[in-house]
C-alpha cells in the first residue's frame, strides 16, 4: 500500500490526474483495484468477475463496463412488468423496492449507478409528488439520459411533471411568474451559486410562464406565456422555456458544475474538486456537446481514479453499502424491507431529503446510522429471505472456494474492502469464527467484519 500521507493536501496536477492510468508497482492492477472500479462504476462485482477483469486489464474492463449499458430485451420486459405490478399498488415505496431490485439484478451496473447520480442531482421526492406513475416516468427519463446528453436531459427534466410538482411549479402564470424552478435550474441543476444573478432568475422564470402540469401531463398554456423580451445571462430575446434552458446549459460554468459533481460522485468525497482540477474534463464535456459517457469514461480510466486520492476516499452511501454487500456475494433478499431500511439509514430511493439531494460523504455517518448499518448486515444474514448464490451463505462461500475463515476474510477483503483490514482485526475475527462448525459463528464473524470502520469506505 502506498503511504497516503504524502498525498494529503498535496496539489493534484490536472494533466497527470486525467491521463490514462498505467498500472505500476505502486498502483498495480489486481483484484483489489478491479474491485474498486466495479464499486465505483456500479455496486460491486463477484470474485469470478474480478478475476476476469484482472486478466483483461483496467482500460479494457472500463470499456466492458461502458459497453454494458444496454440491458437485454427480456430483462427490460421483466423490469417493466415488475414496475407495473408496483404501480397497481399505488404505493411509491413499491417503486423504491423495484429500483433496489433492479440495482441488485441489472447487468448494466454503470447505467443504474449513473441513474442514481441523476436522481440525487435532480432530486424529487415521492413524499410530495404522491404519484407513483409520475415517479416511474421520471426514473425512466433519468435512466434514458443517464449516460447521454446533459442538455437533452435538462430540457426533458424541465417538462417533467414529477419535477414541476415537486418544485411547486405545476402552474406558472404570466402575472405571477414562479421563480422556484428557474432558481433551482441555475443554482442546483446547472450552474451553481455565483454564476447567475437574482435578475437572471426573474427573467428565466418569465420564460417558463405558461408551463403547466394538467391531468398528470406537461402542457404549454400559450395564454399564460409572457411573450415580451427577456434578458438572461447577457442574452436578450423573446425566449420561451426551451430557449431559456438552452441559454443556461450553454454557459461555460454548466460543464464545470456537472463535471465537479461527477468527480465528487465517482472519485472522492474530499476535498471538493477544484476548478483547476476539473477544467480539462469540463472542456471535454463542452467539446462533446455535453455528452456524459465520454467524461465518465475519462474518469474511470484516469490516474486520479486509481490513486490514493480516490481509493477508499468515499463513504459508502446506504445504497452502496447494502446493494454492494449483496451483489458481491450474489445475494438476493426482500427488497421492500431493504429499501425501507436504506431509508432509515438516510437514503430512501425516490425519497431524497430535499431538492438538494443527498450531501453524501460524512453526512451519511452518525451513531444511529452506523448502528443501523451494522444491524442491517445482521438482519440480512439472519433473514430466511436472503439467499447467496441461491443458497445459504456457508454453501455459497464454500462454492466460491472460501472454506476456511482465512479464505473467507480474504474474499471479503478482495471484493468488499477499499482499504485493508487491519491484521489485529483479522485475528479477532478468526477467534469469533471459532472452528466454524456452527453457522452462527460464521455469521457473527461476517457481521463483525462488516461492522469495521473500514467497511464504511468505498
Amino acid at each position, binding site marked *: 500500500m502506498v*503511504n497516503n500521507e504524502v498525498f494529503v493536501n498535496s496539489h493534484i496536477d490536472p494533466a497527470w490526474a486525467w491521463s490514462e492510468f498505467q498500472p505500476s508497482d505502486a498502483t498495480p492492477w489486481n483484484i483489489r483495484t478491479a474491485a474498486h472500479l466495479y464499486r465505483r462504476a456500479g455496486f460491486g462485482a463477484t470474485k469470478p468477475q474480478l478475476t476476469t477483469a484482472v486478466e483483461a486489464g483496467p482500460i479494457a474492463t472500463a470499456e466492458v463496463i461502458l459497453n454494458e449499458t444496454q440491458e437485454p430485451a427480456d430483462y427490460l420486459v421483466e423490469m417493466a412488468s415488475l414496475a407495473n405490478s408496483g404501480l397497481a399498488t399505488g404505493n411509491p415505496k413499491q417503486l423504491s423496492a423495484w429500483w433496489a431490485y433492479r440495482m441488485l439484478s441489472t447487468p448494466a451496473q454503470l447505467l443504474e449507478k449513473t441513474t442514481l447520480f441523476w436522481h440525487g442531482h435532480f432530486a424529487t421526492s415521492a413524499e410530495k409528488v404522491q404519484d407513483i406513475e409520475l415517479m416511474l416516468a421520471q426514473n425512466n427519463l433519468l435512466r434514458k439520459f443517464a449516460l447521454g446528453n446533459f442538455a437533452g436531459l435538462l430540457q426533458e427534466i424541465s417538462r417533467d411533471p414529477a419535477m414541476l410538482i415537486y418544485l411547486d411549479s405545476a402552474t406558472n402564470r404570466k402575472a405571477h411568474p414562479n421563480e422556484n424552478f428557474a432558481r433551482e435550474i441555475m443554482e442546483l441543476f446547472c450552474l451553481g451559486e455565483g454564476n447567475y444573478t437574482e435578475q437572471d432568475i426573474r427573467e428565466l422564470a418569465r420564460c417558463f410562464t405558461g408551463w403547466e402540469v394538467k391531468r398528470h401531463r406537461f402542457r404549454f398554456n400559450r395564454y399564460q406565456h409572457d411573450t415580451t423580451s427577456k434578458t438572461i445571462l447577457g442574452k436578450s430575446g423573446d425566449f420561451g422555456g426551451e430557449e431559456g434552458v438552452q441559454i443556461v446549459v450553454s454557459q461555460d460554468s454548466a460543464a464545470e458544475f456537472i463535471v465537479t459533481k461527477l468527480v465528487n460522485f465517482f472519485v472522492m468525497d474530499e476535498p471538493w474538486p477544484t476548478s483547476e482540477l476539473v477544467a480539462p474534463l469540463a472542456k471535454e464535456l463542452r467539446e462533446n456537446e455535453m455528452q456524459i459517457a465520454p467524461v465518465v469514461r475519462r474518469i474511470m480510466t484516469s490516474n486520479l481514479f486509481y490513486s490514493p486520492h480516490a481509493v477508499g476516499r468515499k463513504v459508502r452511501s446506504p445504497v452502496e453499502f447494502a446493494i454492494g454487500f449483496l451483489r458481491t456475494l450474489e445475494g438476493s433478499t426482500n427488497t421492500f424491507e431493504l429499501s425501507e431500511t436504506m431509508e432509515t439509514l438516510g437514503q430512501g430511493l425516490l425519497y431524497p431529503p430535499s*431538492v438538494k439531494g443527498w450531501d453524501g460523504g460524512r453526512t451519511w455517518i452518525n451513531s444511529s446510522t452506523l*448502528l443501523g448499518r451494522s444491524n442491517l448486515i445482521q438482519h440480512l444474514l439472519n433473514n430466511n429471505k436472503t439467499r447467496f448464490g441461491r443458497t445459504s451463505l456457508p454453501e455459497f462461500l464454500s462454492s466460491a472456494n472460501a472454506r476456511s475463515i482465512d479464505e473467507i476474510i480474504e474474499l471479503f477483503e478482495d471484493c468488499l474492502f477499499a482499504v485493508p483490514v487491519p491484521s489485529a482485526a483479522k485475528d479477532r475475527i478468526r477467534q*469469533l469464527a471459532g472452528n466454524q462448525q456452527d453457522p452462527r459463528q460464521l455469521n457473527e464473524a461476517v*457481521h463483525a467484519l462488516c461492522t469495521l470502520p473500514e467497511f464504511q469506505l468505498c
Partner: protein
Amino acid sequence: MLINPSTRRQFLTTAAASSVMTFGGTVPAFLRQAAAEGRDDGRILVVVEMAGGNDGLNTVVPYDNDAYRKARPKLAIPKSDVLTIKDGLGLNPALSGFADLLQDGRLTIVQGVGYPNPNRSHFESMDIWHTCQRKEDNRIDGWLGRYLAETTATDFSDPAALHIGEDQQPFALMSRDIRVSSIRSLDQFRLEGNDSKQFRQVVKELSDARRESGNDLLGFVQSSTSSAISASDRIEAAGMTYKPSSEYPDNGLAQKLKVVAKLVNSGLTTPFYYVRIDGFDTHSQQAAAHQSLLRQVSDSVTAFLNDMIAHGHGDRVLCLCFSEFGRRVNENASEGTDHGTAGPIFLAGQQVKPGLIGKHPSLSDLKDGDLQHHTDFRQVYATVLEHWLKCDSTSVLGKSYKTLPLIG
C-alpha cells in the same frame, strides 16, 4: 444567511477550543457538543407538536366570560370543573399535571399566539410554524434546521437532532446541510449481535483502535463507530439500570418522551428532540377526545420533566408544546369546533419564568368569528433562540422579533 462550511468550521473550532479549555482533560460529551455550538451548558430543547389544531379556548378557559359560555353552549367548561389559575381563567380539568408544574414554577403559558393573515389549512399553517415562511417564500428549511446549519459541527457523531416517531420527519428540522435522524424506537440505538458478549467485545475493541492510515475519512469513521458503539452500550446499560423516577402514562407520546429521557440520561449529545401527538382536529364530539389528548400531553410532559429533574438534567431541558392553530370561538352543530386561529403555547422546564404571559385573547374583538393573536409565534422562537440556545435569532428567523420574558 448560511455560513459556508469552512467559515463555520473555523468559527466552531475557536468557540469549542475556548470553552472546552476551561474543563481540562475530561469534558463530558454533551458539553463538547454545546461548546461546539458556542455554549457550555448542554441544553436540550424538546418540541412537542400537538397536530390537528388544539382548541385553545378549552385549554386555557375563560370560564367566567359570558361570550365564551354563549359561544359554547355544549362545550363550555364550567367554573366548577376548571383548575383555576387566576380570576376568570382556569386550565382544562385534564391538565392537572400542568397545573402542578405551574404551581411549582416550572410552566409558562404564552397566550394568544399566532401570526398575521392566518391560514386555516392544517398543512399550510403547520408549514408556516415549522419554517416561519409563507408558501410563496420558496421554503426549503425549517427554523431548527437553520439553527443547526449555522451551528452544528460536522464532526460530531451523535445526531444533531432526533425525531422520535414513525411519522414524517418534521419540516422544522430540515436544512439543506444538516441531516437529522428519525428513530422509531430505542432499538435503533442497539447494536444487534445475537446477544453475544464476545461479538460485542470484539466489535468494541476493533472500533476503538485508532487507525494510522493518513486517510482522514477512515479516522472520522473510526471515531464515529467507536462513539456509536459506546452510545449503544450506554443506552443499553441505561435501559437496564435506568429507572424512570416518575410513572410515565401508557400512551404514545409518553413512550416517545421516555425514549428521549433514556437518550438524554445515557449521555447522548443530541440537543434537539422532536415528538408529535396527533388528533387535535376535533370537528365533532370534541369534549371527551380533547380532554383525553390534553391529559396525554400534560401527564406525559410532566412525567418527563419530573424524570429529568430527578436524574439531574432539570436545568438542561426545555419543552415547547405548540399547535398549528386554535379553533373557532363558536362551537359547531356536531359538538365540535372548526379550524380557527390564535392559541396558547406551553413551555415547561426548571428554567422558565413561570406563569401566564400576555392576555387571554379578547372574545369581544373577533375577526371573522376568530380570536386575534397578539403575540407572534416567532417571538416565542426568538426567545428560545436568544435566551435558551444563546444565539442570534435574526439570522434563523429572517427578521428580528421582540423576545418575551419566558426564560431565566
